[in-house]
């Protein structure tokens, strides 16, 4: 990642589903960007902070960084699709290869405002790896 202007993700072509490569200068930023990217795909944009947002603390565990990424995004997906709440800000409090803790400020989202259905975050070709000066992840969503 060269500078802060670098896009936080790019699409990769996948015949039936939707693949993205995500970037972050550290693991915290990578996981934050991953969730914000998924919300952008689903909602067209990150929800605006309006009214009195609720604060939610969540803790997600995984067997390694790749599993952690799938589980983390799965949590955000469930909140948005099933609970009708989406984060407008995400602060990653800590992340290790097996545990992530985050604080979300959330607002309600009308399910009809979801423009792209993501059925699930898949394990297909899942990858989280350190590059020279940044972290990258590859995630394929079932859409």
């Amino acid at each position, binding site marked *: 990642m060269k500078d802060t202007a670098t896009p936080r993700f790019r699409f990769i072509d996948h*015949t*039936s589903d939707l693949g993205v490569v995500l970037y972050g200068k550290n693991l915290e930023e990578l996981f934050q960007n991953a969730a914000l990217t998924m919300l952008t795909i689903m909602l067209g944009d990150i929800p605006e902070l309006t009214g009195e947002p609720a604060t939610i603390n969540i803790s997600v565990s995984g067997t390694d960084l790749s599993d952690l990424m799938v589980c983390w995004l799965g949590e955000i997906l469930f909140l948005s699709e099933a609970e009708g709440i989406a984060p407008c800000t995400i602060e990653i409090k800590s992340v290790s290869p097996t545990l992530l803790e985050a604080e979300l400020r959330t607002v309600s989202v009308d399910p009809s405002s979801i423009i792209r259905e993501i059925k699930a975050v898949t*394990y297909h070709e899942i990858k989280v790896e350190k590059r020279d000066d940044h972290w990258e992840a590859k995630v394929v969503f079932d859409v």
Partner: protein
Amino acid sequence: MGIKLERLDEFRWLIPKAGHMRVPGLIFSNSNMIKDIQDDQSIIQVINVATLPGIVGYSIAMPDIHWGYGFPIGGVAAFDTEEGMVSPGGVGYDINCGCRLMTTLLVADEIRPFLKKIITGLFRDIPTGVGSTGLVHLSRSDEADVAVKGAQWAINRGFGSPRDLQTTEDGGCMQGADPSILSDRAIKRGLNQLGTLGSGNHFMEIQVVDRIYDEKKAKIYRLFKGQVTIFIHTGSRGFGYQICDDFLKQMAKQTAKNIPELPDRQLAGALLKSDMAKNYLAAMACAANYAWANRQILMGMSKEILMRELSIGPKELGMNLLYDVCHNIAKIETHTVNGHKTTLCVHRKGTTRALPPGHSLLPEIYRDTGQPVLIPGDMGTTSYVLSGANGAMEHSFCSSCHGAGRILSRNQAIKKAKGRSIGREMEDRGILVCARGKRTLKEEMPEAYKDVSQVVDVVCGAGLANKVARLRPLAVIKG
């Protein structure tokens, strides 16, 4: 990519066993379409599936094969119940995604002046799109009932008649469903999505029968030229997605320890004799039953809407369920392998069961014809009704293709559709389209799919099925 395919005959290519493959790969295709997948990840996915424990015969791909996640879409894999596994990814998130085709007594030429009114009525009253909620709101105990009873639950509430069960795969109810093992999340997601179409490639279509290939079978299937039919494509909605997700996460963690050489984590599974596998199959059956209830309700709703918009009664409409098939499922079935009857777990991921004439699982009315095999094409061309043939029993564990199969990614399709109005292009072809979003139309544009007629010619040429009728779209609703 360096993968050598051996051509066996006009419609079959072999991927010889190599490396960690336990069985060879077998692809049904033609010389034109095989080129499209030569550099595609889907052939790698056929090979990856061939490495899984307990796989029997071949890792099979149908001509609509395309790159999926884990298993290819258009894949069939059968596993020995003693040594093999079940893989939630080999079924897919949309458990029992499938097709339902209803015939009517209406003639296309007579309803054409009312088509706009009908499709507007369907689009207004059938919940479509992401996060859409159904008119049927379930309590938790109702949902458990749906998960156990399937289509029968919907019939008990006035959607359709008991005879519909005869022409629904498995009678619209997979045995062994156990709602007590479902997660709270799965139950929550299923509470308000029954009776919804969904989004993406899910659709409801009003069609006309424009060609009959086999008069005798068409008569038994109650099809005639010029007739109006209704086609539904949808599945188990968020309920199924969550069940797949819950089990895949558990199995991925275990498989990483037990099979470290697994080529793709999405292929994770559990040995069929394990409690984990048994629990998954019981949960999967809940989602399968939910999907059958969903399609049964959508059929009932469409019947009411058609009668209302045309001001006719049930006798004039004459709606009849020709058949309902699932194309994302794992089933315990008996097949003959090397001359011996063997119990197998057959995964169909984007493939349709195709029972040949005389098969014991066929309803009496279709005993002599073989099972109706429903193949939707893209929204601008045609769909097909086939009948299962003996070749499917010999070569593909009684399976056939499930559709046209994507050829363009969604991003490629959107780029190709830039500056075009797909809705207007469809109208120019004489097809009315109602969709929630313009992007859906672009992603689902006809060029995004293979030529369904070529796909069907392959499965028929290979002896897996036979053509009965061709259906042309008149009006489509999409999420």
